[in-house]
């Protein structure tokens, strides 16, 4: 749990990253939010047997990671954390859908395997885009952008609290598990009895803690509005950012670039 806490749930590191300074960081949160949403919609809109057409889409996360100076390793780790869920969703496809689609040498590749990998690639692309958005913008600014785009405030505030709760929860869980581990000597796993009590206590403690945090917020005049110090602006930079990326997404969506390139190369060779 301690390792989990440190390595995997270290989501708040994204807030540290979002405090960075690059042209991408300075971009209006709305521009980044809209682009990310359109990216996700485009990726998800492909049919379930798509593989090669996804290739150009990796350009988007790669470009943002590089120019935003985000440690790629961090994002990759976080994306891998989500991978098991995608695997769970797609794991039965190869078993159920056994029609052979194509051969690689002597190996038969079924529709099921293709759709399985398609799901995984979709999840890699969408999750990394979302994580990069937060790393470049900060969660609060993303929420502010949602409000500016007309999402009802109560929903956004819920989202914001959910995000804060997450840290509170992992924090408490980490400390409790450390205390448990130090007194349970050789047994590394938890007995069911201990586990149920652990979870119950965690809930109560978390509620308490959340209440104290809420009190601290109220003490400083919180009334349902989170204000941001980052100024929100709208310039040609924002428009061109959205326009360039969205037209690229459209291009990648309408034309299968790798196949076109392949045809071109084989055509030249012939």
């Amino acid at each position, binding site marked *: 749990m301690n390792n989990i806490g440190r390595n995997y749930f270290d989501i*708040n590191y994204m*807030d*540290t990253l*979002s*405090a960075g300074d690059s042209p991408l960081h300075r971009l209006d949160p709305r521009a980044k939010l809209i682009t990310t949403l359109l990216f996700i919609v485009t990726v998800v809109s492909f049919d379930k047997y798509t593989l090669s057409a996804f290739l150009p889409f990796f350009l988007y996360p790669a470009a943002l990671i590089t120019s935003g100076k985000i440690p790629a390793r961090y994002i990759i780790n976080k994306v891998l954390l989500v991978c098991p869920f995608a695997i769970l969703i797609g794991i039965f496809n190869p078993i159920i859908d056994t029609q052979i689609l194509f051969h690689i040498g002597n190996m038969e590749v079924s529709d099921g395997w293709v759709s399985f990998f398609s799901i995984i690639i979709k999840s890699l692309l969408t999750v990394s885009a979302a994580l990069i958005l937060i790393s470049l913008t*900060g*969660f*609060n600014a993303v929420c502010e952008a949602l409000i500016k785009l007309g999402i009802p405030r109560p929903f956004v505030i819920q989202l914001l609290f959910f995000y*804060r709760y997450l*840290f509170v929860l992992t924090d408490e869980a980490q400390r409790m598990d450390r205390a448990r581990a130090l007194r349970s000597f050789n047994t590394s796993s938890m007995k069911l009895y201990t586990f149920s009590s652990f979870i119950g206590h965690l809930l109560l403690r978390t509620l308490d*803690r959340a209440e*104290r*945090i809420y*009190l*601290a*917020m*109220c*003490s*400083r*005049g*919180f*009334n349902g*509005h989170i*204000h*941001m*110090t980052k*100024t929100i602006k709208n310039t040609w930079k924002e428009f061109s950012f959205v326009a360039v990326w969205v037209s690229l997404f459209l291009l990648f969506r309408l034309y299968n670039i790798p196949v076109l390139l392949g045809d071109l190369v084989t055509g030249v060779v012939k």
Partner: protein
Amino acid sequence: MSHHIVEARDLHYTYSDGTIGLQGVTFRITHGESIALVGENGAGKSTLLMHTNGYLLASRGEMRIGDAPVTTHNLNIIRRTVGMVFQNSDDQLFMPTVFDDVAFGPMNLGLEKAEVEKRVREALTTVGASHLSKRPPYRLSQGEKRSVAIATVLAMSPDILVMDEPTSSLDPTSRLNLIKLLKTFRHTKIIATHDLDMAMDLCERTIVLHEGRVVADGPTAELFKDTTLLHRSNLEKPLRMQQCPVCGTVDKLNNTNHRSHP
């Protein structure tokens, strides 16, 4: 009308699970006074503090801030007047950067951006934490967190400062720095603490709570001489009023421990 008065009139509070928090607390604190609130664990110190900014509302009796009782209707004014520094700084710091966190209160007051930035800068300078402004709060040390937590409250320019155990879990130097800092504040101060030496440094008056009641209220230096009173409240005399463990004397003149030994 003065905002700086804190008055409790026969405060009673019982928690929903039946735990009795307060049973008849009465006191009046006037402009610029600095009060130490002492008592054993569970004596009702934190419960009492929660009443000063209306987080808890008395079951019976009333808490008055300035000239008005604390009710659900004037919470906004009350919370602007009373700045509360929590015992656990982690509860207080929740924004992505120190700057955002200190700006949280002033922003909620609806101040102009320039004014917010000015207040944040001033508050951070006052507590000596300007260099931390871009850091995320959860990466700071305990002492730094405490300073920033105090800055978050100062930025709201409250009239009354309420603090729960401000010196707990600080190293001796950070503790001394904090005491020096608090000495410079002109606010009305209510400080709940077990650190009686700090109480002697900062507070001319002390209120002793025991089982939800005020058992003593008077000049700090006098109350702390009363061994029976302190003993009953699970406290002991401030170190400087105890006999020197080496030579067995108490330096009466300076009221400090005898420090110079051959």
